[in-house]
Each structure stands twice: as structure tokens, then as C-alpha cells.
């Protein structure tokens, strides 16, 4: 079994109310030193087999169509190697 991780974040130019709220909460708790917060999604996908090039290409396709909406989001993908 191997794991592919897909991180999906709103594009920088799209406003992020959740990130803004977290930033506000930081301020209220007296954590200063925070310039900005963005909140996105993390998908941990366990594959039944190896994360070979084909499997990763499949996940990549899912990441760009299903897991993220290209109108507002960007994604990054990486294969996690078991420690």
C-alpha cells in the first residue's frame, strides 16, 4: 500500500473567508506575527497497490477534475513514502 497526498488551496486571488476567520481568531488570542492564513483541503489517498507512474497519473487526473475546481483552486500532489 502506498499513499498519495493531494493538497487543494484556493487560488491566491480568490477570497478565503475561512482563512480570514482563523486569522482573526489568531489576533483575538493575542498571537501576533501572523501575516495571513489560508485554509485548504488535504486528501490522503491510500492506494491498493504501488504508487507507480500510472497510478499517480490517475490520481493527478482526479485531482484536477474531482478534488479541485480549477476555477477557484490549485492543487499539489505528492507521493508519501512510508517511513
Amino acid at each position, binding site marked *: 500500500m502506498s499513499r498519495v497526498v493531494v493538497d487543494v488551496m*484556493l487560488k491566491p*486571488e*480568490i*477570497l*478565503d*473567508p*475561512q482563512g480570514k*476567520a482563523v486569522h482573526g481568531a489568531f489576533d483575538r488570542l493575542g498571537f501576533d506575527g501572523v501575516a495571513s492564513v489560508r485554509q485548504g483541503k488535504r486528501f490522503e489517498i491510500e492506494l491498493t497497490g504501488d504508487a507507480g507512474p500510472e497510478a499517480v497519473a490517475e490520481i493527478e487526473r482526479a485531482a484536477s477534475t*474531482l*478534488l479541485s*475546481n480549477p*476555477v*477557484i483552486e490549485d492543487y499539489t500532489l505528492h507521493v508519501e513514502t512510508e517511513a
Partner: protein
Amino acid sequence: MRIGVVTFPGSLDDRDAARAVRLAGGDAVELWHADADLHGVDAVVLPGGFSYGDYLRAGAIAGMAPVMRAVVDAARGGMPVLGICNGFQVLCETHLLPGAMIRNDRLRFVCRDQPLRVENADTAWTSAYEPGERIVVPLKNIDGCYVADERTLDQLEGEGRVAFRYDGHNPNGSLRDIAGVTNAAGNVVGLMPHPEHAVEPTVGPGSTDGLGFFTSVLETIEGMARA
């Protein structure tokens, strides 16, 4: 005239949409998400709800349903399609309409009787209204903040494709107070508020301001048949 109402797993307002169709004088036809056939309907309503729990992104998984391939094709061919709330989100996810919906600016679900301004009364779903008319219909959502990049927004405004704007209070932070948009041809319309909940005087907020969506489309279909 047959208006299809699609049920996805997690659709909530499908029966309400069907009721609104009937009250306007149309025949409501149930369409099932897994069925790629539109059963000869003249128009389609994608109702509100939380399809697939909206767990991934509102409307995202529903957008991939077999029925949506048929809806997208039909819409490109000119069939009137209305997306209400979750249905609007589905239309954005399938790129029949531009933009996308994100979490409300106050991050909470909001349910209220919402005044709207009808900006474009020339679409398949709004011809019964006057341009600039103010109507009140319920709004209820948590992912209702309409966003798009500036260029898209400018283009929408320039082409008169902002169909509805929130009048007065903007309940969810939608950019430029946009409550609903239309495609360039005017047959595909999506909005966050729920016209199907404002069709009878004794239930809902007690206004019948939403009925015009359904009478509009019946008239449009009639016109299309004559042409």
C-alpha cells in the same frame, strides 16, 4: 409541458421544485441522477439540497453524475435549465455557468427571506418579471458566496449576465452582490435563493414571488415550440 426535476442522493428540494412546476401549470417529471436519459422533458430543474453531503465541494460530486452529461448536452442545445442553490453549484461545477460558490463570509448557515433585484428579465426563467423588479424569496445556504475572477465578473456585467442581485443586505459576501447568473444564451440560469419556496401564500414566507420562474419557462417552451 414536461419539466424534469433531477434527484441526486442528498437532494432536498426536489419535491418542492416539482410542486412549483405543477402550481405553474407544468408537468413535473422525476429524473434520477444515475439515469443518463432525460425522458423527453422540455426543461430541467436542478434542485437545492446537499448532494453527496456537499462533502467535497458543494455540487462537485453531483456534477459528475450520468444525468449531468445529458443535461450539459441539452443545455448546450438550448434547453432551459435552472439551478437552484445546490443546483446552481452543480451548474458552476460543470462549467455551464461561470464562477463558483465558497463558504459564506460569516461561515454560518443562513436562512432568511431575501429581497432580490431581477437584473435580467430576458432569460428563459425570468421573462415573467420586469427588469429591476424586487422580489422576496427564501435564501438558505452555507456555501453561497459567489466568486469569480475580476475579468469574469466584468464580462458578466458587461453582457448583462448577472441575473439577480441581493437587494439591500448581502447575506453571504457574494462578489458584487451577485445572487444569480445566466449563460450567454439565456437558457441556463442559476441562483442561490429558492424561488420554489415562494409559490404559495400559506407556506414558506407567504410570498408567491417565485412562481414567475416557472411560468416564465412554460412560456419560453411554448415560444420555442411555435418558432
